């Protein structure tokens, strides 16, 4: 039996969509199912129209789909806006006491959420729990799993609240069992247990990886969609003796982490494109002073304030080229939570090994989407802090020089505060011992030294992910968070008889020139699939390999790429 069913929960901001969605998703995950959720919110605290989407499968799912099987409508707008997304025999669950539906002829299932909540749990506040129970019942799922999740979520609020939520859910469940739709065709069954899996979003993957990788200091300024990275890190301050400091602005944030890193701590900041714009001066400072830092950019649509709560991949070229002057850096763009976790760990190691800034490029879609994924292998987290100046090197090199010219370009580090030597660095061009200079040959030597590190760094960059038909005639190219949608689109195309291969880049800079050239050279037809309006990866490929990508599939309405969107664009004009 194959399961691939999606729920959409729609309503106004403040109606509790996220709680319904999260509990429903977790109940499914607890039955061994693979779950992917994403949210579509307006930038407001109350009102408007938001929705939360959950995709459930017995196979791995890492992206959303446009085919919806069950809509839970908390307002009429949800029905109007989303009824056309329903598959054949799909159902809309709604509260008929609140929403008049005489003008619709879809499959409607009236469950009076508030009335049931009042009758069975003595509080209309439990209406959302009624809705969850109703949805679970409709797809024939196990109520016990929902009950256990409700207990986990509400026990901290006291036994009474927990019990009432369970009563309300059971009432919703029973109501649909008795008054439900006969032979609803989309059924979900428990397929196992969940002990080998975890459920988290992109931001949680990055923040937890930072903590496991020894990041001890984060300074940042709240900005959607990066804020939950900041909050997650801050929530661990007490237990793990790390520090989060909310800076007065992003300029301060990046300079604080540079100061902390210079003094000896693994340090990180997180922001979105607008905040990163303010950090660019500091990025260049990290490049010049060879101070390792990690910067997470959770992209959202620009320019300027753009769509604050939506998604875009508009900052690839910005991340790669940002900063005055020339200096080495690395740029990663994870495609799912697993990649986000392991690449964050790698980002810290490379930053310190090469004493460079490393940028992790995520976006709202990855930041806020929850994935079930296999438990991370934490034993693979290795902390490599790079080369250090030691007592024995005093004999070899004499007094400590922070920017000692070496064959590798890497100058051993020392942290200030030790008798072993004084640590001096400068944003001006500097001598080996870190003092201001204006000498031409010193500048040349330093530029060459800094870029020798880039040559070594190139060897640490992983090869892109390739998937699909071996003897393909068409290559679909993507990067970052579109991984799941691209992979599913590739699979569908090949299942339908096309010969398509997918190339996904998540370690983007320094650019893996050879690996990408090799894939492109053998194919006449290449398509860059990106969530931006100009095809920034296509530009980059042309700049780095000299090969022109033939076609672009672009989405820039602030909504995430779906397999269906890719397929529609793929077939256009064919």
């Amino acid at each position: 039996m194959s399961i691939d069913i999606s729920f959409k929960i729609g309503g106004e901001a403040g109606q509790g969509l996220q709680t319904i969605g999260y509990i429903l998703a977790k109940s499914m995950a607890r039955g061994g199912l693979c779950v992917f959720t994403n949210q579509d919110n307006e930038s407001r605290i109350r009102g408007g129209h938001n929705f939360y989407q959950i995709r459930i499968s017995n196979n791995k799912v890492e992206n959303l789909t446009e085919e919806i099987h069950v809509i839970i409508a908390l307002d009429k707008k949800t029905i109007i806006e989303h009824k056309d997304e329903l598959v054949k025999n799909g159902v809309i669950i709604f509260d008929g006491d609140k929403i008049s539906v005489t003008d619709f002829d879809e499959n409607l299932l009236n469950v009076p959420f508030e009335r049931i909540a009042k009758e069975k749990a003595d509080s209309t506040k439990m209406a959302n729990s009624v809705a969850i129970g109703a949805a679970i019942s409709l797809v024939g799922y196990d109520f016990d799993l929902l009950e256990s999740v409700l207990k986990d979520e509400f026990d901290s609020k006291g036994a009474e609240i927990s019990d009432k939520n369970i009563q309300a859910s059971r009432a919703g469940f029973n109501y649909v069992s008795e008054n439900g739709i006969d032979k609803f065709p989309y059924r979900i069954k428990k397929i196992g247990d969940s002990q080998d899996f975890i459920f988290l979003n992109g931001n949680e993957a990055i923040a937890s990886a930072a903590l496991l990788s020894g990041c001890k200091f984060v300074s940042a300024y709240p900005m959607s969609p990066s804020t939950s990275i900041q909050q997650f890190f801050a929530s661990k301050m007490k237990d793990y003796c790390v520090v989060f400091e909310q800076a007065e602005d992003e300029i301060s944030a990046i300079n604080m982490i540079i100061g902390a890193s210079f003094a000896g701590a693994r340090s990180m900041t997180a922001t979105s494109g607008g905040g990163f714009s303010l950090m660019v001066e500091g990025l260049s400072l990290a490049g010049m002073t060879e101070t390792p830092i990690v910067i997470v950019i959770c992209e959202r649509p620009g320019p300027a304030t753009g769509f604050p709560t939506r998604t875009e991949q508009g900052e690839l070229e910005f991340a790669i080229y940002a900063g005055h002057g020339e200096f080495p850096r690395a740029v990663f763009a994870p495609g799912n939570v697993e990649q986000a976790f392991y690449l964050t760990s790698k980002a810290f190691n490379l930053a310190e090994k090469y004493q460079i800034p490393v940028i992790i490029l995520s976006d709202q879609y990855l930041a806020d989407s929850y994935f079930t994924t296999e438990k991370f292998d934490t034993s693979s987290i290795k902390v490599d802090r790079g080369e250090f100046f030691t007592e024995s090197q005093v004999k070899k090199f004499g007094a400590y020089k922070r920017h000692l010219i070496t064959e590798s370009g890497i100058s051993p580090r020392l942290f200030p505060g030790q008798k072993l030597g004084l640590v001096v660095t400068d944003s001006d061009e500097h001598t080996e011992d870190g003092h201001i200079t204006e000498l031409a040959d010193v500048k040349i030597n330093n530029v060459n030294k800094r870029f020798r590190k880039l040559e070594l760094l190139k060897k640490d960059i992983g090869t892109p992910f390739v998937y699909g038909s071996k003897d393909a005639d068409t290559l679909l190219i993507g990067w970052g968070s579109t991984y799941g949608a691209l992979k599913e689109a590739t699979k569908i195309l090949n299942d339908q008889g096309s010969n398509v291969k997918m190339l996904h880049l998540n370690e983007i800079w320094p650019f893996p020139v050879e690996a990408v050239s090799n894939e492109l050279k053998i194919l006449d037809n290449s398509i860059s699939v990106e969530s931006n309006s100009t095809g920034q990866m296509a530009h980059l490929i042309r700049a780095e390999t000299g090969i022109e990508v033939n076609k672009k599939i672009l989405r820039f309405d602030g909504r995430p790429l779906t397999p269906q969107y890719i397929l529609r664009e793929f077939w256009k004009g064919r």
Partner: protein
Amino acid sequence: MVSLKDYENGDTAWCPGCGNFGILQAVKKALVKVNLEPHQVLMVSGIGQAAKLPHYLKCNLFNGLHGRTLPVATGAKIVNPKLTVIAVGGDGDGYSEGGNHFIHAIRRNIDITYLVHDNQIYGLTKGQASATSAEGFVTKTTPMGAFSKPLNPIALAISQGISFVGRGFSGDIEHLSTLITEAIENRGFSLVDILQPCVTFNNVNTYQWYRKRVYKLDNSYDPKDRNAAFQKAQEWGERIPIGKIYAQDRLTYIEHDPEIERNPIIEQKHNPENFNKILDDFKI
């Protein structure tokens, strides 16, 4: 014992007669007075003639960007509270470009000392108005005289509840070095605003001009009296007070989270296994 010789370091690139020489001498004397070895001191500077000062000393140094001294100094102090951190810059660096960081450093009360060489003019860029230039002051960018009112750093600092603020004069090295010593020894964020003649671009506020006006606050003045301090901060013109203008006991950033002093971040031995429990948050 540490001596002045431990801090001697090479030639300077300042104009002959520059007020910075007096400040450099006063800083060295203060460091000797507090008996710190050069490796125990981290100086953080920005850009401007003042920001070059640490290059002419022996100590750890992060010479960063214009206006960004305080965030760098803050980050370093948080992860290694054992370092004595001194930020140094000019009025352009600290009160214009870095004005926001200045206000928030006061709020944060991070235990660092901030020395501002206040010469009311931009020196390195060769003679433009600064945030503390007097009204009507004619410079290359204010040919009709500066219109904006000068920023009063001391009154601003007191209004925001700074832990320690004093004013020094680069023409009185002994007095200045004592003031800097007190600032270093103060727990919390300390500002020393230093009146510094710019012999090349400021022909108004000269050594002579200052010598006629400055007077030292004596024991009859109580720097703990916030209202008196606020009044003192506004005294300018015929008589200009120098010395400790305001000080108060305030919990410092580090004292507020004593664990980061007991278990300093840079001394923590990281073992990823001790952090595995974090992933329990994501259990299904």
